[in-house]
């Protein structure tokens, strides 16, 4: 009886470990407008407190919060996140590595002013990268022309 209970517990534990492989990945993002305004001290919007460390090395002196969010993305499925009226972030979790890192394809697309024959806006890949990310570590993407500054995106991935 005891052996049966232990065997069942072992199977459940193994099933749980295997199930974690298929849990959606969590994608956290923060969009920032970075600019150089000749300040004596760098300025960070208060909403950027969590990502300030990831931005400080970029060399701008002004960092303004644009938008942020967190979504769950299934492996193999592209999640589309509109950041501004021109830029969209696309994240496709590809696999979860044995060491815990999440392999993902990340694109930042930019909408052109022109439209195609059907009148739809034309989008191009401003950046396309495939990376293996340590859950919780920040990936900084930039710099994309935006008004009087640059768009910078801080991306964090984790288990769903």
């Amino acid at each position, binding site marked *: 009886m*005891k*052996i049966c209970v*232990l*065997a069942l*517990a*072992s*199977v459940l*534990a*193994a099933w749980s*470990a*295997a199930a974690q492989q298929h849990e959606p990945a969590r994608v956290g993002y923060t969009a920032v407008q970075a600019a150089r305004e000749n300040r004596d001290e760098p300025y960070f919007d208060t909403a950027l407190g969590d990502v300030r*460390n*990831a931005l400080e*090395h*970029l060399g701008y002196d002004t960092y303004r919060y644009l938008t942020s969010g967190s979504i769950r993305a299934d492996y193999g499925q592209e999640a589309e996140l509109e950041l501004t009226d021109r830029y969209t972030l696309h994240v496709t979790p590809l696999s979860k590595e*044995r*060491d*815990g*890192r999440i*392999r993902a394809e990340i694109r930042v697309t*930019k909408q*052109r*002013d*022109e439209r195609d024959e059907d009148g739809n806006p034309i989008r*191009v*890949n*401003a*950046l*396309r*990268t*495939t*990376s*293996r*990310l*340590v859950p919780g*570590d*920040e*990936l*900084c*993407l*930039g*710099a*994309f*022309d935006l008004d009087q500054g640059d768009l910078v995106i801080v991306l964090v991935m984790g288990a769903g």
Partner: protein
Amino acid sequence: MDRCRWAKTVEQWFDEGMTPDTPAARHAAQCASCVQTLAILEQMREGAQITARREAISNSQFPAFMEGIREGIEAAQAPAWHFNRLWTLSSVAAAALIASASLFAVFTGERGEVEGSVVESYSTDLENADVSSYSTENGTTTVWVTTAEEDLW
């Protein structure tokens, strides 16, 4: 050799200290069988005296002596089923541990040490733009697009 009918009397005379000038003493002096019996009895007495030598326990040996007695008492009091059950539980626990470790290794694989985030590839479709990648000391990985001229699109 046949046993002499005086044998029991002679044995008793031997046990009582072999008093001289008694009927048993006089008979023993004449009977070859009883002489042989007395010789055997004498050998047995000497042997018994050797083995009967008592070991003395000194004061310094007494604690160890008592410890040995206590261990003997406790071992005698411990029920056999207790050890059997302990062995059974230990065996089941060890088997479960091995099974769990094996299943965990099979389903999760060996995990190496995570060095950090790695950028495998990067590119851009923007004209006159380059992409580079680097990591900072605080663990932030950066993929950066540098546009040499104003983006034509």
